[in-house]
Each structure stands twice: as C-alpha cells, then as structure tokens.
C-alpha cells in the first residue's frame, strides 16, 4: 500500500473562505481544514479544548482512526473519564495545513492542472497553522476556549496560539516542546528531508502516480526520527542486542537485530499513512519556529497580553525537547508574573512519553484541567 487519500471516508471539513496571508507572503483562500470533535459543547460554550497534533499526528485524537483502523494518537490521554475527559469537555482537533489528512496540503491537486501541488504548495509556518485553525473557533461560535493543549509540535502551536490570540484560551498546556527549534532538532529534520529528496521517486515533489511514491526515503526519515523519540535506556531495555528470529548473526545486512527489524517496521507502516511532501513541509515549519524572535528576542513579550493560566510539562528522558527548553518558557512567563505551573515527569520513555501511558503525567494533566475547570 502507498499513500493515497482514502476518499471513501468522509472527513469532517471546514472550507475557510476568509483569505489567510501566510508568513511566506502568499495568500490562500477557500482552503479545507479537516477536523474531528469529541464530547459535546455545553450551552455556555465554555468547555471547549483545542488540541494541536504533533508532526505526524492528525485530527483523530482518540477512538478508532477510520483511515488507519488503529487507536487515535492520544487515546491514553483523551476519552471518557480520561485526563482530557470527553464526558466533560468538547474536544476539537484539526489536521494542520501542510498535512495529509484532509487539510490543505501538498497532496492536494492544482484545480487547473489536476496535478498534485507538491512543492508548488507554499512553505508554511507554525504561525500559519494556528491562524488557519483559529477559523474553527468562529465555526463553532466559541469566544474563549477552556484550554489549548499539545505536545511536541502541538506544544509549539499552543504557544503560538496564545501569543496570537491572548484572550481566546483560559488555560494553556504546552507539553514536551520548545519556544525555538534547536540546531539539533533542525539537524534531525534535515536528515529526514534529505532521505526523502534523495529517493529518486520523490522527483522534485511530483509523484502523481501511486507506483512512484518516495516510500524508501520517507521510511528512512521516519526511522531516524523514531530513534529521537525514544531514550537510550528504553531502547536498551526493550531490544538490547537481541536477535530477530535467529540464533546467530548471519554475516549479512539483513535485520539481524530486533531493533533493526523494529525500525524497518516503523518505517513501513508510516509510509502507508503519511505523505512525503507533507513531511518536508511540516518539518520545515518546525525548524522555522522561533517565538522569541517574533518579539525581537524577548520571549516574555509573546505572552504579555494574556491572562491565561499556563501549565508546562516536560519529561526527564526527553532529549529532543529537553526539560531546560521547556523551562525557558517557564522563566519567560515568570519574568512577567504570569500564572505558570511547571512539572518535569519522571519517565524512561523519551520524547514519546507524552503519547504513552505515563500515570504521573496523565494524573497531572487531569488534575490541572479538572481543578481549573471547577474554578471557572
């Protein structure tokens, strides 16, 4: 199987008529934003939570993802009675622009030529993503969200959102993220992009027919990235030097080790659900993210207009978005006397911790949300 949008499944889509001026200078209009909702919006419309997804996420936060037939990416955290309780809150999540799950992205066709946009799609930023998603608030008639939540790139969107729309959220929860993509993060993203563009099938982004999709490159990009989401300790404990369905090494370049086989599998399932060009565009948006720079180097200024209550969460074993980078956000908020709580969760599971069953994390998230909601 290769990546093709399954048009059989009806994705909920909002067509944004209002023109959106992108950071690159281009303007887009009449573009789709694919979204999903969970729970129900109350009468006062004050129980809505906007969740932002990470690099390879989508709008299907929880329950069964109808495209992949797997659990939604944040099923541990979101659902009835879970940390983000769908019995209580109305959850909105949309696919970012540049993505490949129904929102306007490089796999969309140019209406004139009927060819995929590919690299003719404009380069987008985190700022563009949140400005596009803000249209969903108007769509649902929500003046103020109860919360904006997201991990990794989702956390960057959270920060950008509250900076752009200081009055539109009561609580703000950036998780395992940064206010400025580090050289190491850019380096890993570049590695992924090089893997994709080195695949001959990429063909400068024009791979209209499904037989010639740059799956090899995309799989390698995913494999490299996947390592950065885990910790050395978790890899060692899970795989060590265990061999894959064999007693001895084979003196070949087959997947002798279980870790090799595991990574190959991760790469192969990823290409079934993700578009290589989207991977290029979204990683680029992450690399361009530097919120402090938008405010002449003073990150505090990004938040000086908001009265929202912040809760920042990092993980001990996350070396991709380490605690210090999360703490820099806390420091910037404290410098202006903002209401900010911070916790570093003990976990061996690396950056992926926020997606996994880490009880102290999920409890913190639930307690913060539920206590803040009762104070409403």
């Amino acid at each position, binding site marked *: 199987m290769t990546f093709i949008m399954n048009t059989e499944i009806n994705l909920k889509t909002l067509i944004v008529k209002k023109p959106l001026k992108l950071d690159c200078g281009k303007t887009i209009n009449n573009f789709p934003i694919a979204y999903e909702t969970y729970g129900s919006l109350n009468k006062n419309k004050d129980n809505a939570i906007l969740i932002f997804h990470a690099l390879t996420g989508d709008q299907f936060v929880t329950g069964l993802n109808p495209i992949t037939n797997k659990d939604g990416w944040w099923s541990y955290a979101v659902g009835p009675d879970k940390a983000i309780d769908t019995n209580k809150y109305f959850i909105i999540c949309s696919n970012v622009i540049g993505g490949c799950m129904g929102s306007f992205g490089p796999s969309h066709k140019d209406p004139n030529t009927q060819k995929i946009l590919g690299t003719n799609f404009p380069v987008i930023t985190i700022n563009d993503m949140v400005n596009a998603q803000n249209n969903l608030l108007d769509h649902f008639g929500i003046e103020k969200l109860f919360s904006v939540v997201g991990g990794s790139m989702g956390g960057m969107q959270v920060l950008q959102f509250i900076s752009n729309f200081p009055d539109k959220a009561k609580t703000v929860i950036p998780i395992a993220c940064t206010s400025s993509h580090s050289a190491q993060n850019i380096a890993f993203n570049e590695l992924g992009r090089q893997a994709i563009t080195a695949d001959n099938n990429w063909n400068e982004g024009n791979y209209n027919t499904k037989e010639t999709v740059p799956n090899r490159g995309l799989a390698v990009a995913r494999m490299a990235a996947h390592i950065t989401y885990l910790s050395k300790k978790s890899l060692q404990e899970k795989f060590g030097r265990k061999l894959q369905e064999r007693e001895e090494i084979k003196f070949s370049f087959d997947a002798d080790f279980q870790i090799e086989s595991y990574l190959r599998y991760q790469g192969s399932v990823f290409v079934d659900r993700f578009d290589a060009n989207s991977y290029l565009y979204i990683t680029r948006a992450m690399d361009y993210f530097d919120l402090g720079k938008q405010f002449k180097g003073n990150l505090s200024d990004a938040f000086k207009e908001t009265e929202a209550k912040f809760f920042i969460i990092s993980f001990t074993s996350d070396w991709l978005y380490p605690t210090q980078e999360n703490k820099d956000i806390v420091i910037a908020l*404290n410098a202006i006397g903002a209401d*900010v709580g911070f*916790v570093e969760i003990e976990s061996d599971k690396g950056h992926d911790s926020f997606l996994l069953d880490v009880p102290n994390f999920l409890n913190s998230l639930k307690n913060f949300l539920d206590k803040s909601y009762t104070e409403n």
Partner: protein
Amino acid sequence: MKNEFKVIADLIEKDKRVLDVGCADGTLMKFLKDNKNIDIRGLEISKDKVQKCIAKGLTVIEGNAEKDLSQFPDKSFDYVVLSQTLQAFLNPELVINELLRVGNKAIVTIPNFGYWKIRLHLLTKGTMPITKTLPDEWYNTPNLHMCTIKDFVHFVKSRNFKIFKSLALNNEDVSLINNSNLGIKNLFADLGIFLIEK
C-alpha cells in the same frame, strides 16, 4: 494544619501575592488561597510533592530554590515564605538575599539548634541531637547549616535587614522575641519565625 503555618498565615494580610518556597504538599498554600484570597505560587523540588500540589489545584513550579528563584523579577511578590528549609541549602545567605529581592518581605522559619533539648542531648550523650523537628541522623540529614535563633538574629542584623517580627514557637505556645528575652527564647523555643525586609 500545624501551628507554625497558622502563625505564618496570621502574618499575611488578605489579597496579597505570595510565593511559598519549598511548599511541600501545598498545605499552607491551600490555606492561604482558600482563607485569605492569596494569589499563591509554590516552588518545590520533590516530584511527589509537586504532584500533590497539582492535585489540590495549586500553581506550583518544580524547581530548586538555589537556582530557580533567579527567574522571578525584583519585588514580584508581597511575601516570600521559607519554612524550615534555610538550613538545607548549600548557600543560605544567597537564598536569603534572593528571598528579599523577589519579595517585599520574607517570612523565614528555622528549627532552633539552641533549643534546650538539643543542647542537653549533645551535652549528655555527646552525639548529634535527634529531635521531633530534627529527626535524621548526622549522615543522612538534609540539613547542612543548622543555626540557632540567636545566630539568625545576629545574621539579619549584621546584614542590616529589618526585622518586623520575631516569634518563638514551642509546641502550641507562640511568643514574641525581643532584645531582652533573646537568650531565654533561644533556649526554650524549638522554632523561630521571622518577618524580615531588606
């Protein structure tokens, strides 16, 4: 709630902005928030205790007072509270300076090493004293810089900080410390509570 916290709470007027350094499970914070409408923040190093604060709906920052106080701007709180932790820092003087920079006033409480039971323990047994307030052995105590009420008063005066109120606590008894009774209080109080300003 322990008597010490009641005494601290009585020193703080309603509607103020307070930072509780080493806020533990948030007992004092919760009391101040619920009863005195205090805009309260906590700083706590223990992950378990941070979780307890979050469960109470309190705004807490996980961190270390010796490093993390520096992120708060000058005079960003009306009061900064430091309860029975001064002796555990590598550099207590630096922490006191930070408390008085961040807060208009600081409330500092110290376990009194001059307390008669401690003196007697050392005198008669010749080993490091273990009491209710100081329950650990010398080799596993977090306390690095024990001092007496007298030591603390001398220190504060030598730095020209203002002492607004000095209180001696002995179980349920609270009494004022002044120049004339300092020696007595230093003998009979197991805890000293000080309201100071730079």
